[in-house]
């Protein structure tokens, strides 16, 4: 923003003298402007949010009195030791990672055809508009409603069983597959949106150029389109990956006896009241997500969120 002062004070500036003075001050001092803009949001994010996270991580090094449940604030690595040595935590962590990755892949596979068709293939703006609206509307349906819908569909003698019965088959029932399916369903709009936006921004001329150079549609897609829209795909994957990793409600509704890592966190805080252990367990998703974000930062995906 240019720091040139107003050329000639026009007569219209007679009113609001102090406003003018303030405006002039800010116009000349870029850094004060920046400070004024930054203070409140930064305070919010840094102090409230990061500070809270820091407090939680500190609590991970404490423990609780097993009888009274009071927190004992003595530094100890016992929680982390338990997390690393007991096999169940490793198993559940790997299972959760596996689910998160599967959901991301499934969603990417589902989102690409839809986004591609809407942005590049169809020539009717009305169809394009309709597809975009139709795919984003479910965001409003609500998480729990969709979870419940899947419960109805996948439960024993539910909709899927009823639909497959004439074929003599039955659905997968509640469990791991059900959880993966339901989670893919939930986060699909979050993947479609950035991918569509990225495809939308891709100039048609690039695709035409690739065709002119002799590449067929498949080759064009693989070598030209995908690398360019990769930040968009990654932006979508941030949501699908971390939302799946941190989910504990869906698996309780459609997961049968399965548990995910976030259930361990939830059971320890909401049920057992063992904040230190829950906090220690929570550091796993934090590290994974922060690591993933840091890794994809360079691809520019964060701007596509």
């Amino acid at each position, binding site marked *: 923003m240019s720091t040139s002062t107003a050329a000639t004070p026009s007569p219209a500036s007679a009113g609001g003298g102090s406003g003018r003075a303030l405006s002039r001050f800010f116009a000349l001092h870029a*850094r004060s402007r*920046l*400070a004024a803009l*930054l*203070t409140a949001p*930064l*305070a919010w994010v*840094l*102090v409230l949010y*990061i*500070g*809270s996270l*820091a*407090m939680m991580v*500190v*609590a991970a090094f404490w423990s*609780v*009195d*097993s*009888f*009274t*449940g*009071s*927190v*004992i*604030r*003595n530094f100890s690595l016992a929680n982390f030791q*338990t997390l690393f040595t*007991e*096999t*169940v*935590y490793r*198993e*559940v962590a790997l299972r959760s990672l596996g689910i998160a990755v599967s959901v991301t892949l499934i969603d990417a596979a589902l989102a690409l055809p839809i986004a591609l068709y809407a942005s590049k293939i169809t020539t009717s703006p009305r169809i394009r508009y309709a597809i975009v609206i139709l795919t984003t509307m479910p965001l409003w349906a609500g998480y729990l409603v969709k979870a419940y819908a899947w419960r109805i569909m996948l*439960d*024993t*003698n*539910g909709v899927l069983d009823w639909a497959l019965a004439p074929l003599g088959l039955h659905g997968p*029932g*509640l469990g791991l597959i059900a959880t993966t399916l339901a989670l893919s369903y939930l986060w699909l709009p979050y993947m479609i949106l950035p991918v569509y936006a990225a495809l939308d921004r891709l100039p048609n001329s690039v695709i035409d150029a690739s065709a002119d150079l002799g590449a067929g549609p498949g080759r064009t897609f693989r070598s030209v389109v995908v690398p360019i829209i990769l930040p968009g795909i990654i932006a979508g994957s941030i949501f699908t990956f971390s939302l799946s990793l941190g989910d504990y409600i869906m698996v309780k509704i459609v997961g*049968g*006896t399965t*548990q995910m890592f976030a259930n*361990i966190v939830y*059971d*320890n*805080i*909401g*049920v*057992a*009241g*063992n904040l230190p252990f829950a906090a220690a367990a929570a550091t796993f998703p934090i590290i994974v997500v922060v690591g993933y974000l840091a890794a994809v930062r360079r691809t520019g995906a964060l701007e596509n969120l």
Partner: protein
Amino acid sequence: MRKQRLFGAVALAAALAMTVAGCGSSTPDTKTSGPQLPNLPMATEVGQGEGTLNLVAWAGYAEDGSTDKNVDWVTPFTEASGCEVNVKIGNTSDEMVTLMKSGQYDGVSASGDATLRLIYGGTVAPVNTDLVPNYATVAEFLKNRPWNSVEGQMYGIPHGWGANVLMYNPDVVTTAPTSWSAVFDANSPYKGKITAYDSPIYIADAALYLMKTQPDLGITDPYALDDKQFQAAVDLLKTQKTLLSNYWAAYTDEVSSFEQGSSVLGTAWQINANLINADGKVKVESVLPTEGATGWSDTWMIAAGAKHPNCMYKWMDWIVSAKVNAQVAEWFGEAPAQTKSCDVTSDKNFCTTYHALDSAYANQIYYWTTPMSACLDGRDVACKDYAAWTQAWTGIKG
């Protein structure tokens, strides 16, 4: 640029300050060997209602007509006392302890595996039973018991007691089960359709089964388990997991899974069976197996520092009044604590069916109790404490 750097440093310092503030406040370390009884004041009189009451309760204990229009003893209470009641349903004792520790509730209907934790944790205050007139006619065998009193001081008002029953769908489970082996047998014909209670306290059910079927393990109290006994119970539960369709924590989970047909057999509360039968989609029966059962004896307790103590004392008197205690007991399917309730139950044989006045029967149930490292059966070995039970439970669920 220096201003920004300075600003950044200040912000970071603020974040750190918050952390230190969180560290530095309140509770000093309590690294004493045995639990110490906090010294908390007891109310001396009940004044005017404060207008609100926040309760943590088991499902079915504080009905306000939303489950069934005709089942409501909260609205009459509000009319009589002026206290608006907000009920938070706790699915397990653990949840209830955690909720009470948040300090936002005035009272709780605690089972024996929560009561002592609440008492020694300073979360609940002693109860002045003189302020609860209906307490006088509560069954004597429920007064001054190890789970609701310490050194002769009562910490709550008994609500009712009952056993965890074995519920089954007779259309699928055609031969009525008589033993808990129905849910533990690795070769069960109902594999994949059995359900179990989702709480570490369920380990006691496995221990009870082993107590009767493997006496050489030497279990005398299902809540007092040494390493070997505990491991046997955990192994049994890991085997059981392969038979399960799901674990139920909220009573509605079990109700809906039986109604949907995904479960046909499992441990239950009588109210679950009553609700399923009332809905009429499937029919269920419940039975108390030959090995006996775990159960619960619930006590209404008042929070230490409760914001609405008068309303809570009024509630405690209300809930053990003859008519209301009868209503609760019949709705839930448990034995009422109030002896006079037996005269006003709508089913004249209710108290006989539930052995409400039979102290000998009542003493046979293995009530939920918090396991401690000092063995509850008095043995001189190290028993598994509740923290070990909780961690083992995560491992069992896998």
